[in-house]
C-alpha cells in the first residue's frame, strides 16, 4: 500500500517536472526541474530494489552532469535567447501530434509483446541476502569485465575531447 502510494507520488512528480523541463523558457529553471526529475527517478529505483543504481543516479546525474549543465549555462550569456520566439507554429503542432503517435505506438508494443521471460539467477531474496552493490560489483568484474575496461577508455576519450574542444587555441 505504502509502496503504491510512493510510486504514484514519485511518478507524478517525475512526469510533471519532466514536462516543466521542456516548457520553461529559462534554461536555468529547466536544469533545476531536470534535477528534481532525476531525484524522483532515483526514488523509483529504490522502489525497484536497486539502491546502487539510485545512489549512482544521484551522484553522477544529479551531481556531476547537472552541475556541468549549470556551469555551461552560466558561462554562456543567454539573455537574448530567452526572448527568442519560434516562428515555426506548424512545427509545434506537428511535433505534439507525432509525440502522441509515438506514445501510442510504444503503448501498443507493451500490449502486444508478452512481458514475461525466462527468470534470471537473481531473485530479490538472494540479492537482498548478498547485497545489491556486491552483486553488481561481482558481475562488473567478472562477466562484464571487458565492457567495464572499455568504459574507462571511453571516459578518457571524453576528457581529452572536452579539453580539446574547450581550448581556444590548440
Amino acid at each position: 500500500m505504502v509502496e503504491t502510494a510512493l510510486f504514484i507520488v514519485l511518478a507524478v512528480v517525475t512526469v510533471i517536472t519532466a514536462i516543466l523541463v521542456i516548457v520553461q523558457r529559462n534554461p536555468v529553471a529547466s536544469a533545476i526541474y531536470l534535477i528534481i526529475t532525476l531525484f524522483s527517478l532515483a526514488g523509483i529505483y529504490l522502489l525497484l530494489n536497486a539502491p546502487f543504481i539510485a545512489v549512482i543516479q544521484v551522484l553522477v546525474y544529479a551531481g556531476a552532469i547537472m552541475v556541468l549543465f549549470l556551469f555551461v549555462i552560466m558561462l554562456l550569456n543567454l539573455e537574448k535567447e530567452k526572448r527568442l520566439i519560434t516562428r515555426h507554429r506548424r512545427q509545434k503542432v506537428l511535433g505534439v501530434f507525432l509525440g502522441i503517435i509515438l506514445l501510442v505506438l510504444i503503448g501498443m508494443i507493451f500490449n502486444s509483446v508478452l512481458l514475461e521471460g525466462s527468470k534470471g539467477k537473481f531473485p530479490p531474496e538472494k540479492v537482498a541476502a548478498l547485497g545489491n552493490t556486491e552483486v553488481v560489483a561481482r558481475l562488473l568484474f567478472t562477466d562484464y569485465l571487458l565492457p567495464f575496461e572499455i568504459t574507462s577508455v571511453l571516459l578518457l576519450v571524453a576528457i581529452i575531447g572536452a579539453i580539446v574542444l574547450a581550448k581556444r587555441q590548440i
Partner: protein
Amino acid sequence: MISLSSYLILSAILFTVGVLGFMLRRNIIVIFMSIELMLNAANLAFVAFSRYLNSMDGQIFVFFVMSVAAAEAAVGLAIIMAVYRTKATVNADELNIMKW
C-alpha cells in the same frame, strides 16, 4: 506490488516528453536536457525489467548507459561552448551552416 507495466508506461511517457522537447525547443542546451530525459526513460525500463525478470544484467546496463551519458554530456557541452564562441548563439535554427 506495482505491476511491470506501470513502470513501463512511466518510462514511455518520460521518453515521449524527451522526444517532444527535442523536436519543439530551439535552445541547444534544452535539446541536450531532452536527450538526458530519453536516456533516463531507457534506464527506468532497464531497471524495471531487471527487477521483474530476476536478473541483474539490466542494472549493469544502466551503469554503462550512465557512463556513456556522462561522456556525452562532457563532449556535447564542450561542442556547445565552441559553437557559442564562433556564432554567439545557442539557437538551433541559426546553426545551419552545415545544412545541405
